[in-house]
């Protein structure tokens, strides 16, 4: 699954808005890898963080279709952007006496936490990006996973960093973040630069 794109969607905090967004994905056959919703600092606005599987043209359509929704305030495609990405995983795993030490070592390495312990096993909690959570699950699997629950991945772009300028405003003058006005995709951006080179 290396064609996953985290997309951040600011929406009006109103009834049915999640259904609008998820319905759009279902209807147009876009695949959701994970989804998380929560209020922002402005109670009138919520953020839907959705991770979508698809090649660039598909992601381009996802972003454009989301922008068509009147309830959607802003869509940011964070693919390839410097960002912080986190999800929360809770996992109940078998923990016989002779294995507990090993498990607690893993907890340390992954900066996880033990939320609960009893004779049936341990409930562990860990946060991190997708790769970290997947790695943690893989390591616990041989011990016997009894139950698992995880949240959708949430992400935020870093505003400082080597590429930050490029992403906030691109070389040829298109404001990539300015929704609703020109709405040019990255593929179109590259083509535009090629046309400009011709003479």
């Amino acid at each position, binding site marked *: 699954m290396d064609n996953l794109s985290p997309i951040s969607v*600011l929406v*009006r905090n*109103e*009834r*049915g808005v999640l*259904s*609008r967004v998820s*319905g759009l994905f279902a*209807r147009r056959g876009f695949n959701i890898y994970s989804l998380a919703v929560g209020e922002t600092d*402005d109670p*009138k*606005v919520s953020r839907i963080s959705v991770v979508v599987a698809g090649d660039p*043209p598909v992601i*381009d*359509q996802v972003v*454009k*279709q989301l*922008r*068509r*929704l*009147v*309830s*959607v*305030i*802003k*869509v940011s495609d964070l693919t390839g952007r410097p960002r912080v990405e986190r999800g929360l995983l809770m996992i109940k795993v078998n923990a016989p006496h002779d294995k507990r030490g090993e498990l607690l070592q893993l907890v340390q390495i992954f900066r996880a936490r033990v939320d609960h312990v009893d004779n049936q096993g341990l409930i562990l909690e860990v946060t991190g990006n997708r790769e970290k959570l997947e790695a943690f699950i893989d390591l616990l699997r041989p011990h016997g996973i009894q139950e698992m629950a995880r949240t959708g991945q949430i992400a935020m772009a870093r505003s400082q960093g080597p590429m930050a300028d490029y992403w906030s405003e691109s070389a*040829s*003058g*298109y404001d990539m973040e300015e*929704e*609703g*006005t*020109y*709405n*040019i*995709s990255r*593929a*179109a951006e590259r*083509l*535009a630069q090629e*046309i*400009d080179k*011709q003479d």
Partner: protein
Amino acid sequence: MSPFSHKSNTARDELGLMLSRQIRLTHSGGPNSGPRKDAMNTPAKPQDHKAAYTGADAVVACLKHQGVEVIFGMTGGSIMPVYDALFRDGSIQHMIVGHEQGAAHMAEGYARATGKVGVVMTTSGPGATNLVTGLADAFMDSTPMVAITGQVTSNLLGNDAFQEADMRGITMPITKHNYQISSVDELPGVFAEAFFVALSGRPGPVLIDLPKDVMTAPCDHLLAAPSAPTGYKPPYRGHPLQIERALKVLAQAKQPVILAGGGVIIAGAHEELRELARITGIPVSTSLMGLGAFPAGDELYLGMPGMHGTGYANLALHQADLILCVGNRLDDRVTGQLDTFAPNAQFIHIDVDASEIGKNLPCLVPIVGDAKPVLAAMVKGVAAWDEKPDYSLWRDQIETWKSCYPMTYADKSPAIAPQAVVELLGRTLPQEAIVVTGVGQHQMYTTQFYPFKEPRTLISSGGLGTMGFGLPAAVGAKVGAPDKEVVLIDGDGSFLMTIQELATAVRYKVGIVVLILNNNFLGMVRQWQEMFLDKRQAETDLQPPPYARVAQAFGGLGREVSTTEELVEAIAWARAEAAEKHLPVVLDVAVAREALVLPMVPPGGANADFIPCPGQKREE
């Protein structure tokens, strides 16, 4: 007197005046202005409320504020308070329909003829679900519409109450946006936004679901718009750098074609389109929704492309090295098999809806913007070119195709060829007459053989292909454009689906001519059966009722026509009667039963491999 002129009732006019003053005052006063005491003593206010108005009054005030002239609809349990308020106000014309689907198509016809928002109103449950086809149709064809549906009272919502249906959920995928109002305070803001959303950017249907308790709730101020945060900013101008790049690409093209769609008509950009074609000399093809944007008969005009398009339009697009696509969404009926469509062409795509660009085909120069300012900018850019490109070789090639594959049809007299009827109408009707169609063979004959020269003269169900669209849409079109002649060309299958609206046309004295190309078949399906299913005619042989007599029974006029000689006289009679008596006049024309719509691109085939008109051979 026109049945749609406003009633003159001084007391009601006064209320309307007060309400509209209230609207302005509250607007300038901001969302927190209190009620206006001087507007409270009005003769028509309801007795059982302490507050000045009810939510239903606010609905009517909002509709008036939006300049709504006519509502198509049907009352019922959950919408009664609004109908009561409409009755007390008395300034908005309402038309009772036979079935709510008819109301939706009337609103579409009205909107397509006028460019204004069509308004429908129904009760909850079945009244509202009956709108679904019309909403989906309007959504596909980008028709501005506001649908107001009653809903059960808020405390019953979600309880499977009598006549409850989750209209917000049901219509989410087929509306541009929809609302369910939960408090009377939301009303003005939602209505203002709904009309703006419906009409702006790429237009579309918007539904407002209105629980009954909101309609009866006391309401002190009629207009206080708390602005919800929104990212809805429809683009308009188009990026100047992209337009520059488009011009650069255009200047290098050797075999360009302009492919225009319904967006050009919606944007009112037909003059700009014609000007661009004229000063560049680039040939123009228009999709079904774009018919009328470019005048038929012009030497640069290629007609419609696609499944039943002209051979020369399909060949020109196939050989083009550049396609300037404007307000057209490259629908599958236009492109045929996508990977074989215009294999040598690069695309400049102008559309107000960014999601249409690159959806079906990769695009070299996307321009997100309204067709009118973008085409105007391109005209300006081309006018500044030092030397005009010479497309004469390309146009010669197209002329050759035009002479190889002219639009012809089989004439097996004495049977009347359906295409001949359409051609005759085309010669007879004035150029500004509005032609409405249902869906099927008759629709394709109309698009192929009627010479549309002006925008908004064809009203047809393009994207959804809704049989039964024709009659109610024609009624709505005539209501919107009472000074224009409205002629419905329908099929015997299509017409039956919404035939109840003859009652509406008679009740409100809507004078339209209905011309049924009657072949006693569901003709388009029969054509596919003949061509692709070994002529097995599964459930396509219709025995329709005698439409002329049905029309008479409804209170309209009707006549059967079975020979070419009768036809000319019958059309003249029908037009005169419709104009004079303001009644629907039905001509039931028996046409050749097994006529075929040709040319045709077989489904799944490449456009260049079309089956040509009778007597022509496809070479290459």
